[in-house]
């Protein structure tokens, strides 16, 4: 474990940025943190987390897959990919760090999504342990420890210092680069910090939320629960929850006619949309209730079923604070989970 003083942070950032683009949460003009490219003078946000999740570093909202250029009646096929540059994402929280595991299990299994894989390869994730969780946090529900964030490098912040620990080879390399700016240290301060965090975690209003009722094999138990009607009643079918969610990974592939050819691109899609996965024969889920149910069943039942019990919710709480009508996974879990046990 290594440490550096908080005052030296800008020098550390500069060192990281020297040969890989550094992105970190920075307060925007509306006071909300957003991942921004670091440059001299850019200040690391003190906010707990960003409005948008860091998944877009690896799975951007929109990316070109292939391009067809037409000239008269001939077509030329172009691969628009440029070799991805190395980059470092700093300040990722434990919940979001876990989300990469969820995404990896989708994009890195056969057939490997080479667009995603290439970005994962070039990206280094530096996580930072939480210090001030808020009422919407419930990562513990999914077994995530905010005091022990994953990632290539884990960082703990105290009042005056930052403690660095590498977890992977990539992380090791990064810390080597910072050798001059950091010094070797014991993990006592970190242990104290962890304890502090855990005591806060136990006071959170959602501390007792359990996901035990859900998981693999529960499809039949929940699918026909009558509560879905009521829960989905107020859903306005927007994609906010999906788009702020760090683990939602659905996309659509579309063609854009440029006038001189076609750009085939993919962009995020949301299972909450009525046009989602619409095919020539229509869409598989016709009502908002079905679409609503799909999203939560996927996170809590279908995904775990296929991925060794791993839930595809990380309890980051973004959807809790962002849903226009305040309907969210916690309300679903409490309603469905509770009722189904009776």
């Amino acid at each position, binding site marked *: 474990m290594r440490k550096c003083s908080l005052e030296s942070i800008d020098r550390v950032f500069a060192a990281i940025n020297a040969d890989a683009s550094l992105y970190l949460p920075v307060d925007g003009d509306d006071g909300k943190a957003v991942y921004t490219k670091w440059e001299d003078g850019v200040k690391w946000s003190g906010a707990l987390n960003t409005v948008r999740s860091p998944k877009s570093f690896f799975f951007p909202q929109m990316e070109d897959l292939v391009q067809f250029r037409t000239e008269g009646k001939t077509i030329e096929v172009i691969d628009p990919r440029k070799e991805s540059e190395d980059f470092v994402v700093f300040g990722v929280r434990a919940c979001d760090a876990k989300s990469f595991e969820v995404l990896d299990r989708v994009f890195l299994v056969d057939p490997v999504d080479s667009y995603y894989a290439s970005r994962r390869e070039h990206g280094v994730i530096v996580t930072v342990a939480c210090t001030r969780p808020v009422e919407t946090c419930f990562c513990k529900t999914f077994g995530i420890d905010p005091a022990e964030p994953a990632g290539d490098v884990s960082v703990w912040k105290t009042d005056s210092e930052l403690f660095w620990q590498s977890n992977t080879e990539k992380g090791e390399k990064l810390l080597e680069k910072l050798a001059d700016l950091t010094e070797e240290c014991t993990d006592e301060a970190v242990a104290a910090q962890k304890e502090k965090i855990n005591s806060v975690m136990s006071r959170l209003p959602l501390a007792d939320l359990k996901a035990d009722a859900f998981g693999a094999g529960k499809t039949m138990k929940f699918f026909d629960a009558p509560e879905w009607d009521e829960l989905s009643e107020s859903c306005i079918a927007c994609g906010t929850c999906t788009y702020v969610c760090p683990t939602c990974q659905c996309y659509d592939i579309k063609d*854009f006619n*440029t*006038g*001189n050819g076609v*750009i085939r691109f993919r962009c995020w899609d949301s299972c909450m949309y009525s046009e989602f996965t619409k095919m020539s024969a229509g869409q598989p889920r016709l009502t908002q209730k079905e679409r609503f149910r799909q999203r939560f069943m996927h996170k809590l039942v279908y995904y775990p079923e296929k991925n060794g019990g791993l839930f595809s919710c990380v309890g980051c709480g973004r959807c809790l604070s962002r849903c226009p009508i305040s309907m969210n996974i916690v309300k679903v879990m409490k309603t469905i989970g509770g009722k189904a046990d009776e």
Partner: protein
Amino acid sequence: MQVKEYKPLIVAFCCNWCSYAGADLAGNNRLSYPADVKIIRVPCSCRVNPMFVLRAFQRGADGVIICGCHPGDCHYTSGNYYTRRRMALLFSMLDYLGIERDRTRLEWVSAAEGAKFAATMNDFVEKVTALGENKRLEDLRCKK
């Protein structure tokens, strides 16, 4: 190396009954205006959807002009009055977003006003040329 002279791309929507006929009259009288102007015939100026205007900018137009019958002379009696409101609001909104005002215009040209048609186009092309390439409402994917 010689710098290639900048030629703007102008899309002109002309109503069939007045302005398109006005453009024809400009032709009959051999009143020249730059070839940068390309006319699309619509039955009435009120057929022009703001989406068409944005589409033209997206696809690379540097200026969009809509021409219709003079107020009171609409072949369909009231179409141009709706156009006038729609475009006043649309153009004002584009201006509000910081898009240059001289890239959009609504002009009334009657079937008898060949000279006005040519003069309007000359003036519009000049103004758009002065602004240069449309950068603020461009879609890079559509660039060659």
